[in-house]
């Protein structure tokens, strides 16, 4: 059906992002294909845990197994939007959530008044008019965390089933931000069990009650004593795709985790983040805050390893 209708149809799961966008005519389709049939199960296993794409964000955030084994993932799911929307929104939907831009997430009339943008009905990007591409911001909270946890997604399409690392799901483009075929559906997320891995997600937003991220850091960390054996840092909401901070991962690996190395790693991780003036608050401030959320996420993950007691930098200790 999806293949047949092509761009005239969209899939809908929770619909929490899709329905408002239909009203604002950001999406204009003739048909919606419901994904109610997707699994809502979390299936723990010794090698990996499989989450059906239909698992709601509230279910993921409250799941005891995820909470103890993939703490950062449950945390990220619990920080998406607001309680009623988490009850409807699914983990599959959050992985695929549309990129955001405050020139784009507006009504038809507003967009017509300012001049339509590249992402919908227009020819230029209003954030960076001289650039040939769209700079809408990747706004998934769970996507970066699933990447840091080295997760895999299952895609099902007319041609059958395939598996991809979560990282390969995304492209650095505000319009074509997904690497999957439009007719393919994410049916499951699999998070591998990595011995001694601890994770954390820190999200920056104006209101802790509802907002999309304006910066965020997903960190997965394996420590031996205070020494980092393995580290994955992925940033949210600072580019058109979840931004992997590989240089910072490499920098930290093999180092002893103390305040100074955390600070230095956060500095390296924040460097490629280039927030633009298309989300809440100023992009200068957001750029400065990337470092802070990375430090906080590393410190938080480190405390969860139980072995290390790195002070939570920049946060009040209670």
């Amino acid at each position, binding site marked *: 059906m999806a293949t047949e209708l092509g761009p005239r149809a969209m899939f809908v799961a929770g619909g929490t992002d899709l329905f408002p966008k239909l009203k604002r005519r950001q999406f204009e389709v003739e048909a919606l294909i419901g994904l109610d049939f997707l699994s809502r199960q979390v299936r723990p296993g010794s090698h990996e845990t499989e989450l059906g794409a239909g698992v709601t964000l509230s279910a993921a955030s409250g799941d005891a197994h995820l909470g103890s084994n993939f703490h950062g993932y449950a945390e990220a799911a619990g920080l998406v939007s*607001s309680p009623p929307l988490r009850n409807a929104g699914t983990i599959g939907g959050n992985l695929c959530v549309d990129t955001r831009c*405050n020139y784009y*997430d*507006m*009504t038809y*009339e*507003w967009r*017509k*008044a*300012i001049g339509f943008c590249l992402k919908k009905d227009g020819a230029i990007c209003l954030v960076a008019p001289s650039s040939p591409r769209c700079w809408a911001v990747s706004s998934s909270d769970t996507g970066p965390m699933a990447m840091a946890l080295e997760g895999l997604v299952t895609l099902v399409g007319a041609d059958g089933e395939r598996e991809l690392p979560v990282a390969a799901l995304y492209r650095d483009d505000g319009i074509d931000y997904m690497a999957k075929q439009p007719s393919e559906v994410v049916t499951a997320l699999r998070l591998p069990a990595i011995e001694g891995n601890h994770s954390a997600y820190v999200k*920056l937003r*104006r*209101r*802790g*009650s*509802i*907002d999309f991220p304006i910066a965020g850091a997903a960190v997965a960390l394996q420590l031996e004593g205070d020494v980092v054996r393995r580290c994955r840092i992925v940033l949210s909401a600072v580019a058109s795709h979840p931004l992997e901070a590989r240089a910072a991962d490499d920098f930290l690996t093999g180092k002893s985790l103390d305040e100074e190395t955390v600070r230095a790693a956060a500095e390296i991780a924040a460097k490629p983040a280039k927030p633009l003036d298309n989300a*809440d*608050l*100023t992009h*200068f*401030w957001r750029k*400065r*805050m990337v470092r*802070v959320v990375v430090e906080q996420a590393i410190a938080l993950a480190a405390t969860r390893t139980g072995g290390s007691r790195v002070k939570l*930098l*920049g*946060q*009040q200790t209670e």
Partner: protein
Amino acid sequence: MGTFSKAMTAQNGFSVIGKPFPKPDAVSKVTGRAVYADDMLPARTLHCRILRSPHPHARILSVDTSAARRMPGVQAVITGVDLPIKFGILPVTQDERALEHEKVRYVGDPIAAVAAIDEEIAAAACDAISVEYEVLEPVMSIDEALAETKDERIQDYGGPNNIHKLVALEFGDVDAGFERADHVREDVFFFQGNTHLPMEQHSAIATFVDGRVTLWSSTQVVHYVHRALAKVLELPMNRIRVIGAAHGGGFGGKTDPFAHEIIVCKLAMLTGRPVKCTLTREEVFYAHRGRHPVLMWVRTGVTKDGHITAMHFKTALDGGAYGSYGVASTFYTGALQTVTYDIPAYRFEGCRVFTNKPPCGPKRGHGTPQPRFALELHLEKIADDIGIDSVDLKQRNFVKPMTRTVNWLRITSCGLDECTERVLTASGYRTRQKRRGRGMGFAISSYMSGAGTAIYWNDMPHSEVQIKVDRGGVTAYCGAMDIGQGSDSVLAAIVAEELGLQPRDIRLVTADTDTTPIDLGSYSSRVTFMAGNAALQAARKMRDMLVEAVAAKTGSPGDTVTVAAGRIGDLSFEEASILAEARFGTLTSAGSYTPPKIAGPYKGSGVGPSPAYSYSACVVDLDADPRTGIVKVNKVWIAHDVGRAINPLLVEGQVEGSVYMGLGEALMEEQAFRKGLHKWPSMLEYKSPTFMDMPEVETFIVETVDPEGPYGAKEAGQGPLLPVIPAVSSAVFDALGVWIDEVPVTPEKIVEALRRKEKGEAPRFGPVRFPSIPYPTCIKVEPPPRTLEVGSASAASI
């Protein structure tokens, strides 16, 4: 959430007044059974959508509606030529049109309207209307508005350039006051504009039957809508009926007559069918009439011991594209500084400019939260300069009850001292631990219990109530509109108290220009005081009739007949009412309220006088993260002098709601513009705290029993918002040692101020200069005698 004060349970000799009764409409609203304008759908209703300007400033060259008219389902299309008569809330600024056919002045200015069989068709038809514009240079800031006009002025009155209104007043000898001072300080502050954000969007539905227009609307003032409709539709007022539908929140944003209200009436007249228009959330941002952005400069002289000798206050208001209440707003930015602090000599210069933005107007606290923010922080800085504790300095200058201010405002009851002590004690403000990143802030404020003068000049009462008793049933009629603040509850409580009944026994008919006598509406915190006094008068007249009838029947003297617990003397209320109806015929009584003539003897004295002022004090406790600048409010303590709480449950609700709204303004709300457009006309992007962002609030009700209020009551709906905003900025200073002299206090401003502090620059964020404005020469006003004669304030004509 709040802690009930003693007043909640006090035995005060009343049977209803002072008891926490639920609102008469509480159940219907929380269960979805209340009928809002948008819920109404009479048979054959047409739906209206409005085409709005995409340009902030442009001349309209032509409007072609032919394609829209041809669309199936479209029943009528109108443009500005169909509604050319100008209107506006103030008689001096009749500058709006329901639909503009000559010129548009902000993105969102209405141009054409369509009535169609459904909303989608109406919207598509709007999209099919083609408008040819000559685009003009937009004016988007106070500085641009003051500068030489590039293309043409936004409005064709006012001036020079895009100045709308200039005022300059001086009370007492200000220069001498500064000379007498031991210390003089100047500061500049900015308060960003923000909007009301009511949960219910504006909505209106009109019918035209037998030559009469009936409009149901979500409005705060049926009377002013009635007047505007008569003017623009060119119909006598007796052929128009305006009814307030169930109301989902106003906060000042539904106090003007609006284009869509006029448009649906016109379309109903043209089509003969009911026509409804519910604004989209985006359109609500364009209807606006919200908080003016205000740039402020203040200079104050004090003696060594902190007594104020003189103050000079200058304001510049960014008014948006139309007049609205702006002239009043301008005066309000200078009027109420004197009702909290004793200022012996005072100069005020105010200026409102036009810009190409949605028009600003009255929002909760109308024109006074901005100067209150400036004044409270300014005094703290002065205290710091001269080495006095800032709370002490403020307290030393508090006004006293039964005095007159230098600008002729009459203060009767005043609970400033008690409010201050209550919040300082409860919060432990004076003994708080000093720690980087955690702070407390303190501020006070005052607000009016209704404007002492009407919007259009007249000598008639401001509020009237009729009571009908018919076979035991009591109905009270009043033009007042319950916008959620609880005015219905106040009316029912007062009538019930006087007739020995319970509030649920009183039927209310309100806000209907055909069936209810006048009330000027739910704005300026006037309803409890004014409609309350009118209800009291009407109810006492009715009680007298009932008592007289019972006394005549039983042969006992009237003053021995008790009225309580559903009985008049030994008879039930119903029996008594039958006797009275037999004796007097139809049982009706009427009461009215006209404010005392208390305005000072100078031009501009009409803004500021009120029969009574409420007082508030507040302490805010918060964490401010020095790295991110993110502020988390932990708790707010607030005390409010309401005179007497007629219903303490609703007073608490109003106080907590004010705290909520104040915190939003203090920390995040911002009417921002980009490329001539409102930057974020949506509830997700325009940041306002949600229910889950609210801190704990502890409320104290202070009762000073005002000599003229009904049972001593004053206002509660607006005043408590005012101190919250400066208290937040003050608490940030307490936590981090930097002043944020600009609202909202956002994380980026705090981080920037801390960076400046680190570099050895002035540890603040805020405006650095006040522009040069061609204020006229001050009107010099001789101050009045400063104490009130005993007996000059007395129970209102009851």
